[in-house]
């Protein structure tokens, strides 16, 4: 489990426009700098916002990556709800859902 590394990558990406361009052009070059599990690596490559949520990425970090990936707000919320149905609840951290039924 290297949630810390996944979040660190996203934290840096969120505030660095140049890194965002590099990530979109050649994501492996960015990801080599972080110790990620295969599942985390694939979730980032596939821009699988739902799975990143399940892995425990803090919402205040994930919502920016979701926006960067072009998800509108309702799509972002829906991606997390869909992931809960597929994977079950968040595996670790504070962002475990309490009911998943908030009103968008």
């Amino acid at each position, binding site marked *: 489990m290297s949630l*810390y590394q996944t*979040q*660190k990558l996203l*934290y840096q990406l*969120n*505030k660095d426009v140049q890194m965002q361009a590099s990530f979109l052009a050649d994501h492996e070059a960015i990801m080599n700098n972080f110790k990620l599990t295969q599942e985390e690596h694939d979730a980032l490559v596939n821009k699988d916002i739902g799975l990143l*949520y399940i892995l425990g990425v*803090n*919402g*205040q*970090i*994930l*919502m*920016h990556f979701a*926006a*960067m990936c072009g998800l509108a*707000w309702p799509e972002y*919320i829906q991606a*997390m*709800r869909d992931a*809960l149905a597929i994977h079950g609840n968040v595996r670790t*951290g*504070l*962002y475990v*859902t*309490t*009911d*998943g*039924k*908030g*009103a*968008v």
Partner: protein
Amino acid sequence: MSLVFAGVCSHAPGITGRAHMADPDDKETLYSAFDDMREALEASKPDALIVIAAEHFANFFMNNMPAYCIGAADEYEGPIEDPKWLGIERRLIPGNPELSKRIIAKVMKDVDVAYAEEWKFDHGISVPLHFLTPEYELDIIPVNINCQGPPLSPLHRAWAFGQALRKACDEVPERIAIVATGGISHWPATPDSGKINEAWDKEFLQRWCAGDKDALLSYTDEETWQDAGQGGFEIRAFIAISGATIGSQAKVHYYRPIPIFAVGCTTGWVDL
């Protein structure tokens, strides 16, 4: 000179970023409440504005997370968010490093704080400033209390921090305003986004208006997380204002749960 204004307001990114998705009455009444707050702030003729905001991984991460940090830059950039997503243009905001450092040194007599000569604003500061200082002419001193994740500073330390900040304000010749920003109950950036515990919010705000120290400090983080969500940890910002204004009554001027903004939107200030 002294503290000339102390208030609180919401900072949820949806307030500006998703304004087009809101019920017009929700949007208009909230925006006009922000206008009222701006007028009250301006009437106090501040020389500088301290914004106590829970930030959201714009500057600080778990590699080096301060419990409390005060900015001391001559200018700040913000918002870090995509300007279109947040609905606020990216720009430079003036700071006052000399005043910051005097205040930091005074606060340190009572509470250990980190300081930062570089700081980028996220929605926690950018949304309030968009409404409260729309000309961006007032010097800003940003303050962060870590409200993102444990280990979190205990509530009684947020109170003590507010007290220390008040002492510092009273010891400098400038007229200082403080605005603390944050949510009350909310589940931001989760599948529960839009859930708001109105009863919990109202109880909290009642304690905040009364400056009831024992009642304000009695919440445990576990209870707050259960009843008020991940965003509920931001009550630390409100509590710092109470610590800074002991003995004064505060008033909530606007409160309305607005699910599309993901929080019970609030403005309030203290009768100093």
